């Protein structure tokens, strides 16, 4: 098992980081302060200029043919930058469903170039009550992550994957208020919306899609953690109280050490799970579950410390600390309560 990145993987990271360092802060504030949608230009640049939106898509399906280790690197950088983007809906859930279906409709290409954005109902989060009736779909689902900005919707009903034009007749999307202002969710109401049946996935295949999403979310969380550590260390190295920088106080220094220690462990867990996704797919469920159980609470604890060691300024809207805190908590809960994650792990451990 390879837990150390190759030099190509390091280059991928630097390229993504360089772009996001320049572009993400403005995009974050546009969404957080002005309620702007996802930055389509930036998303397209990620898709075309860097070619990183189809990293885990095989070449014969029009992707980059790299892998989940590479996609985890992208996820980490997106998490670091807190970029409001359809990563989870479009580049993870929809993409993995389409890869699972071996879909050649051309949608994978459009998602991979960033030309179109997709969201998925019926895989992560509450199932909703969508059913097939006549030629169309009826019922509602939500929260559906990234549905607000989506061009395409994939709705999974009883293992069958349906494709819908998100802007078509019979589809109503109601934006929801979210804990994390950098990630947009919607309720989707379908009233006889026309849908194309793309194919169906059995429960193992659907579980693989969930496990891959788990790995991507955990990777994103490690990016959140890394940024929280870096920014907190920078702040406590600078802020002076009682005539000394606060990072010289042991309570603060040791807290930073704990933040770093759990981040380094989380990174190891994610690399192992991403490696399994590529090289040992049958064994993926266990490392994916381990990553989720460890990283979820750890990421939130780290961001909580971030707010704490920033003091009052960390509690302001203007400062980014709350965005890390909220991203960490919503990532932790996105696919259900932490107890459910541990229950699944206990199942896999055969307790």
């Amino acid at each position: 098992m390879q837990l150390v990145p190759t030099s190509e993987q390091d280059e991928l990271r630097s390229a993504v980081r360089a772009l996001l360092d320049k572009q993400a802060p403005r995009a974050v504030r546009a969404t957080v302060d002005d309620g702007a949608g996802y930055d389509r230009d930036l998303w397209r640049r990620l898709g075309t200029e860097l070619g990183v939106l189809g990293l885990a898509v095989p070449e014969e399906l029009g992707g980059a043919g790299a892998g989940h280790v590479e996609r985890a690197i992208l996820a980490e950088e997106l998490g670091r930058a807190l970029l409001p983007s359809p990563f989870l809906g479009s580049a993870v859930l929809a993409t993995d469903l389409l890869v699972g279906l071996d879909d050649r409709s051309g949608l994978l290409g459009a998602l991979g170039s960033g030309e179109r954005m997709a969201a998925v109902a019926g895989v992560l989060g509450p199932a909703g009550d969508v059913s097939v009736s006549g030629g169309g779909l009826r019922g509602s689902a939500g929260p559906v992550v990234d549905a607000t900005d989506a061009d395409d919707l994939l709705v999974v009903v009883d293992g069958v994957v349906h494709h819908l034009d998100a802007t078509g007749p019979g589809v109503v999307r109601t934006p929801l208020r979210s804990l994390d202002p950098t990630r947009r969710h919607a309720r989707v109401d379908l009233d006889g919306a026309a849908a194309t049946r793309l194919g169906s996935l059995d429960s193992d295949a659907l579980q693989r899609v969930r496990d891959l999403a788990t790995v991507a979310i955990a990777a994103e969380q490690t990016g959140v953690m890394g940024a929280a550590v870096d920014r907190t260390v920078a702040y406590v190295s600078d802020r002076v109280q009682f005539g000394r920088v606060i990072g010289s106080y042991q309570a603060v220094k040791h807290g930073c050490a704990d933040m770093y220690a759990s981040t380094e462990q989380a990174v190891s867990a994610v690399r192992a799970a991403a490696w399994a996704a590529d090289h040992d797919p049958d064994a993926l469920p266990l490392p994916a579950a381990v990553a989720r159980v460890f990283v979820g609470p750890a990421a939130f604890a780290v961001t909580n410390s971030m707010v704490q060691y920033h003091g009052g300024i960390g509690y302001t809207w203007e400062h980014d600390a709350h965005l890390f805190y909220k991203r960490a908590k919503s990532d932790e809960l996105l696919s259900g309560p932490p107890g459910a994650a541990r229950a699944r792990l206990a199942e896999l451990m055969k307790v």
Partner: protein
Amino acid sequence: MAEENWRERLRTWLAEHPPPPEAHTDVAAAQRYQAQLHDAGYAGLTWPKEWGGQGLGAVEAQAFAEESAAADLPTRPFMIGMGMTGPTLVDLGTPEQKRRYLPPLLRGEEIWCQLFSEPGAGSDVASLRTRAVREPDGSWVLSGQKVWTSNAQWADVAAVLARTDPDKPKHGGITMFVLDMRQPGVTVRPLVDMTGHAPFNEVYLDEARVPADGVLGEVDGGWRAATTMLGHERVSISGMRQRRGRGVTSAALTELAQRRDVAGDPLVRDRLADLYAHERVLELFTDRMRQETAAGVPVGARGSVGKLAGALLAHRGVEVAGHVAGADAVAWEVSDDGEGPGDDLALGIASAPAASIAGGTNEIQRSIIGERVLGLPREPAADRDRPFRDAPTGEVDRAAGSHV
């Protein structure tokens, strides 16, 4: 492919040569087994061939760690030599020292201990007071007291830190020596720990002798040798699954939960899963550090992450043991063979604090991470820059903690 063959051969060898049960209680049996391991090519995997090692890489080391975990090898007598003093000799020893000490170390013929801590110098080991004075012939005479020395009851050789120049600031006047433990100037007294066993000792040095070529590293350069060794120590401790903690691992507790018929209890399942995740993630972190080392990225102070996480894990195991065992961890019947079902649990519970004290306490590990990894300001120290002889002392009175 070559790796798979190697692993396959190792697995076969371990299956055909399991350690005899008495190797865990009888040190001579453990030594015989270690010699067998060495003969088969499974000792000192990553050490240079010329010093009796195998000259292999991280891949084999990891395979060995994985394959040998289940075999429960009798490693305790050799852990200081293998994990700490041996690697330090590889780093800093003279060719003569390596030739003299490494092969018998790997074969288990000579057992090592580490004489650092003193009654007044634990976390602050650089404040040690054991003196080493040079004789006209260049040899050294050591006097002082060491304490909490693991394995000294068996040790043939020690790596000892002593003060060679009290006029220098405290870190500057220390030297590391290789000390023959089998000599009249060395007295070892067992010290019973909170588990009721005596795995560590007090060691009194009363004009103990070290020949001129017994300096490890440079004269007055002992601090560098000490930090080299402490770095190895942190890595080896975090990679080590201590036998004494085996009662409170997720595997043992899962088995216990099934035996007690509480494995269906959602809280028990929840806690076991959480414990397993933490164990697994620490293993993965350790594997990653091993791979980085092999790739030429030194672990350095990041080894403290593993040391700290391992200590927190031991305490987490104690917490989960309570959920699984309930009152069964409080008292139990002893059978005719002198053993009882709660023995391993009790040992796991009582030994957890060792993990957070030995090899540098959790607080010290956090300071190391904060300062050396994250670059935060160092602690203020009252004694760093003045001659050691003027520094304040803080020796403990052990009797003050006793009620008998």
